């Protein structure tokens, strides 16, 4: 019997494991926090491990074309649903597993207990995100988006209060409309090409006649609108800062990742569907300028924002805008720099959002406001005795962690944010076609957004850590400090290992550029032959 090798079965684990664990946890009584947490934690660790293995496997010569294809229900593509693990998917699975582990551990002390079914919803969310990264089928992608969104509705409302209900209402309404657009887009694409398989799309689109093309393009544009709503492109992304600010910190940290899922889907589908043929590169220009508009909007937002949660939201919008513009630009070297940027900014924004929950403990709004006014009007205090205030260890940790995440978000040296920006600029300046107006625009805007981030985050940091008049050191539990340290430690590791990581990302981008081999690989993977009829397997 030629059974599937375990390496292939592993592709399913990131989807199936959270589903099973989440389902099993539904009937378990809410009082058994520790059991639920333990199951969730174990599940997360396995996910981390499997993501690591998948990442390693896709980078080796085990699978032809570095693609692991899994035919669910044993039907060949394009008829059945194929899951595909490649370098990009492996990387994003790893990012998901890391981030979720951090968010989970962070939530273990308090946040997971302020409502019911946190752990099941959390696991279902992971299932949805992982599924969206792995699937190669448009409708299946929709299903996983729905799983992800439904779980995120529940999580945004988790531990609800007025703010969360209000923000959740907005979030749900917008995303339902986006889902509707998603469906319309898929329907139009299916109507014009007759397939739902992403790999199958490319050749079919290339073969479409000029008369049939507009319908497909309209479908693709509507589909893109759905993704861009989730990726928060201006003017579709106003829901984002409100939602981030309202959600509980661990949930907000996971939301950061979800923004990237929309952009991932866009990159995946476009690099397969519009790789060649008369419609090659459809809409990329619009995407670029949309990304620029988003970047401008995020920059303005981060300058104007006063609450840290909104600030993080606008930081996420900035990073979304950058990524959209980078993908819309179309230069492969730029894209691999963009992936590096994605990793760093996601980790840092998530760490920042976790920190926001902790800094609430040391803020005393009155003192901060007074300090702000005095600085704004350049009022000098009477010089006091030059004796400093000792920062207790917990406060020092918060300050350092805040500084580190701010450095990554704004792209200041020496952490990964700087390498990311540098590599973006390097790619922009040293592209093959010389430096165009678009390159200059993007470069200047990225610099400006970094500067705006510096101004805003410094204002917030000074107000929180220096001017708060915090007398008592905040209470800090290891399960809260640990995840933040993990996320920021990864940013440091990304800086040190920038060379190998960028090389890996370059291979990833090259894979994306070779749509032909992807298509061939997916469509030619055979189903496991069934035994002759009548014989019991």
């Amino acid at each position: 019997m030629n059974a599937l090798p375990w390496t292939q079965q592993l592709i399913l684990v990131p989807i199936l494991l959270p589903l099973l664990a989440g389902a099993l946890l539904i009937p378990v009584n809410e009082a058994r926090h520790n059991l639920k947490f333990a199951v969730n934690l174990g599940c997360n660790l396995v996910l981390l491990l499997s993501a690591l293995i998948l990442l390693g496997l896709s980078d080796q010569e085990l699978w032809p074309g570095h693609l692991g294809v899994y035919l669910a229900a044993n039907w060949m593509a394009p008829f059945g649903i194929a899951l595909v693990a490649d370098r990009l998917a492996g990387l994003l699975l790893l990012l998901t597993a890391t981030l979720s582990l951090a968010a989970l551990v962070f939530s273990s002390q308090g946040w997971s207990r302020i409502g019911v079914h946190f752990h099941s919803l959390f696991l279902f969310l992971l299932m949805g995100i992982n599924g969206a990264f792995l699937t190669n089928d448009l409708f299946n992608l929709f299903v996983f988006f729905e799983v992800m969104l439904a779980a995120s509705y529940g999580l945004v409302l988790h531990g609800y209060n007025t703010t969360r209900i209000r923000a959740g209402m907005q979030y749900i309404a917008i995303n339902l409309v986006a889902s509707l657009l998603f469906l319309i887009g898929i329907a139009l694409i299916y109507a014009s090409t007759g397939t739902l398989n992403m790999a199958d799309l490319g050749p079919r689109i290339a073969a479409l006649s000029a008369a049939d093309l507009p319908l497909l393009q309209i479908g693709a544009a509507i589909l893109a609108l759905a993704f861009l709503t989730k990726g928060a492109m201006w003017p579709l992304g106003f829901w984002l800062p409100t939602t981030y600010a309202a959600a509980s910190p661990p949930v907000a940290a996971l939301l950061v990742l979800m923004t990237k899922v929309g952009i991932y889907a866009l990159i995946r589908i476009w690099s397969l569907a519009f790789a060649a043929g008369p419609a090659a590169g459809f809409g990329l220009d619009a995407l670029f300028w949309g990304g620029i508009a988003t970047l401008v909007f995020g920059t303005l937002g981060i300058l104007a924002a006063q609450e840290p949660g909104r600030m993080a939201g606008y930081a996420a919008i900035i990073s979304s805008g950058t990524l959209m513009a980078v993908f819309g630009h179309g230069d492969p070297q730029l894209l691999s720099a963009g992936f590096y940027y994605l990793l760093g900014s996601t980790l840092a924004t998530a760490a920042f959002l976790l920190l926001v929950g902790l800094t609430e403990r040391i803020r005393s709004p009155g003192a901060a406001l007074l300090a702000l006014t005095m600085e704004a009007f350049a009022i000098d205090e009477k010089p006091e005795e030059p004796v400093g205030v000792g920062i207790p260890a917990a406060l020092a940790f918060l300050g350092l962690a805040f500084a580190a995440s701010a450095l990554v978000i704004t792209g200041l040296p020496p952490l990964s944010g700087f390498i990311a920006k540098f590599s973006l600029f390097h790619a922009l300046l040293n592209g093959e076609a010389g430096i165009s107006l678009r390159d200059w625009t993007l470069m200047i805007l990225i610099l400006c957004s970094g500067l705006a981030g510096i101004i805003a985050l410094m204002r917030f940091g000074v107000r929180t850590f220096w001017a708060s008049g915090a007398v008592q050191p905040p209470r800090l539990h290891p399960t809260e400090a640990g995840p933040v340290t993990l996320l920021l430690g990864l940013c440091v590791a990304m800086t040190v290992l920038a060379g190998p990581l960028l090389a890996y990302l370059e291979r990833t981008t090259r894979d994306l550029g070779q749509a032909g081999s992807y298509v061939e690989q997916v469509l030619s993977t055979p189903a496991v032959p069934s035994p002759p009829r009548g014989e019991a397997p």
Partner: protein
Amino acid sequence: MTLSALIIAPFIGSLVAACLPANARNREAWLAGAIALAGLLFTGWLFMQADPGEVLYERIAWVPALGLEFVLRLDGLAWVFAMLVQGIGLLVVLYARYYMSPADPVPRFFSFLLAFMGSMLGVVLSGNLVQLVVFWELTSLTSFLLIGYWHHRADARRGARMAFTVTATGGLCLLAGVLLLGHMVGSYDLDAVLAARELIITHELYLPALILIALGALTKSAQFPFHFWLPHAMAAPTPVSSYLHSATMVKAGVFLLMRLWPALAGTEAWTWIIAGAGTCTLLLGAFAAIFQRDMKGLLAYSTISHLGLITTLLGIGTPLAVVAALFHTLNHATFKASLFMAVGIIDHETGTRDMRILRGLYRQMPYTATLAIVASGAMAGVPLLNGFLSKEMFFAETLLVGGDSNWWMSYAALAVGVFGVIYSLRFIAVFFGKPDQPLPREPHEPPRWMRFPVELLVLTCLVVGVVPAISIEPILHQGVVAILGEATPQYDLAVWHGFNLPLLMSFLALVLGAWSYQLLRRRFNLRQREQAPLIHRFSGAQAYENTMLAISRAADFMLRHLGTRRLQPQLLAMTLALLLVPALLVGMLPGLLAPAPHPADAFFVMLWVAGGACALAAAWQAKYQRLAALALAGGTGIVTCITFLWLSAPDLALTQLMVETVTTILILLGLRWLPPRLRDAGPAAAPPWPVRLRRSRDMLLALGGGLGLALLSYAVMVRPMPDSIASFFLEKARSEGGGSNAVNVLLVDFRGFDTMGEITVLAIVALTVYALLRRFRPAAESIAIPAQQANPVDAATRQPPAEQANSGYLQVAGIYMRLLLPFMGITAAYFFLRGHNLPGGGFVAGLIFSVAIIVQYMLAGATWVEDRLHLRPHRWLGYGLCIACATGLGAWAFGYPFLTSHTAHVELPLLGELHLPSAFFFDLGVFATVVGCTMLILVALAHQSTRSHRLPEKADPAREAR
């Protein structure tokens, strides 16, 4: 590992220092001092070892793909600066040991100080420009932290923010400039850039690159118009001011200009930008320094002025000017650091730095006074001190650059000389005269070792000033050769060059300065002046704060116009995008609209007119009449259902019917708890025109959206189907899927994976609804019993639901409905079992089963049903999902992928051969999940009633008490 040790050691020291206890002043100082001393000796030794002119390298690969390499490069210039950084660093550490109060948290101080030392060494030793930028920003960051060291003071916080904003912005510009350089040269390696002068200065991007790099250097070195941050940085502890803000960090800017001098200098643009900024700074700084009342403020402006002098020299661009610039950099570091330390001592001992109060300190602290007077002599350019030599070189260069005709540069230089003498005199005035008011503290000489760094530095000033050729020239020469290479000019460091114009200028400056000082003091009451004339209106600090405020206000303003926090405008934007984006990207779709192949059936058209009318009416009534809207929406659902039947899709019709039924009932149950929406009181006047305008806009948009989607649907329907994957499913459903109902086979086999996801969504939604409603309290206005149920004539109003059904007016209905339960159960089982071959399946069966239970709830109320029937929706949900998963996983046992279906043929005694497809079990999971989901939502809603009736009674006593 040799050169990198120089940089790594301070950073490790910084980490260690951070971990030491808060009161470990001595240990901290020893640690920092040892690191600085070891570094100093090591740097000196390294250079002795190397051949003259040799450049030492250390390379560590970092990101080779981007040309980013970690390169440390020690040449003469780097050596001179490294010695300066570590030498002054050592003295500052010693000084800080005594300066910092025992109550200060010193670990932080020494930790940041060491980190700064490492970063600064990184800047001077960088052999790669990007790496230089990294360390450059690190110096800004550590400077920020050190300025804000006493962060409970507003001036410290403001100074730190200002310094960081300005220098970090400059750093970003520098990064951009360096990237442009790298683009021009093709490498970020310093050697490659220095060797490519011709390429760079003829490149079209030369000017932007130069401007950006200059912005970086000028902000860092506090040059006009970015100079304002430096005086505010004086809020830092004095050792920091002495180290970072006079001797080293602010020199990073001029260091960069020297470093890149061979590659960038010598063009007209260079001279205009660099020398222009330098000259303005020079005059402005010196002028402002005269009128300060804070001793540190005076020194800060004087530093600005001296940095301007160095910048001007570099801008002039002759080789000799470069020599003078480097020379003055070293001289300034020595005398200014010692002056800052002296001010620190005065501040420490007297408790003030205000020159309006300080008087006659010579008597109490003669030793410190002598040192400070000598150092300010160097600052003023008094002969036999080092400042005199470099200033004279500056005068000579200004004369040279102007030639015979253009004297403006020389006038400026002379003016600066005069100003320098004035503020130096003002500075030393604190030592003379009679104290006219008591000082905060009784001054006395500082501890022996606190004074030692000052003594050493002042001694250096003297030695260099008297015997420059022996003392400084060998060191200076190393640096100069590293910058200029073969262009190194002949120069002669000597006190006496004979009578010439520069000497005359020095002399004039001294005389005029002394005279003007007297004049200012006598006539203009210089001592008590609080502001500099003319320029005090241009407060950089206020301008900075105003700019920041304006930026955030402008951003806020723009944000309010470009964004929104409300839901409606967002939906508007989405609809607009839906209409415009495809239209703009693809254009209209005239070609797609072919005439329909068949004429429409009249009945079908009527059906759709009715459905459309229902939908419109639902939208129309949704605001005030929710019940009507819901009923109308149900009408639309029925039309959809009939349409499916009409188009031969019985599966879909059946599912649609059941979904409509269940959702309508559930929403109805929910509607009970929504507070009614009341119409605005008052006469129904015509709405004002902005409202009408908005409504017309929305109307147009709605029409456009609806029409667009209708057209798209039409286009899809009239075009021939493409060669799609659909035919495959129809062919294989029976032969390979084992079922004749292709829709069901599609759901449980071909795309069973989708179904699994969908039931997960159902489960999630149910859980979310449950979580939301679990502790939900209905709004106050919807708690009261509805009017229909409160009629006193009706006997039923006094009966609970169960009683109504058992013995009340619902008795007949009750008996029938309860009898119906098993039949509905059988119907569900029937639809479930036939699903694989005929319309039906787990989903529909689950809904039918749910309806059976909902009916019981509606009849007799939640309490009655739950007393008799233990539904555990959570288990139904959880186990349903698990059954579906387990069925899929069963395939693994046989080596097949997840969800691969298999049909077993079982011989049963009575029923005969039975086809038992694995899809059957999968469908069972679907069934259980659907039942669990519906039940959970039902229970969550139904329990509102049990809770809300209790509520008013509980709330009543509280209300009465109020």
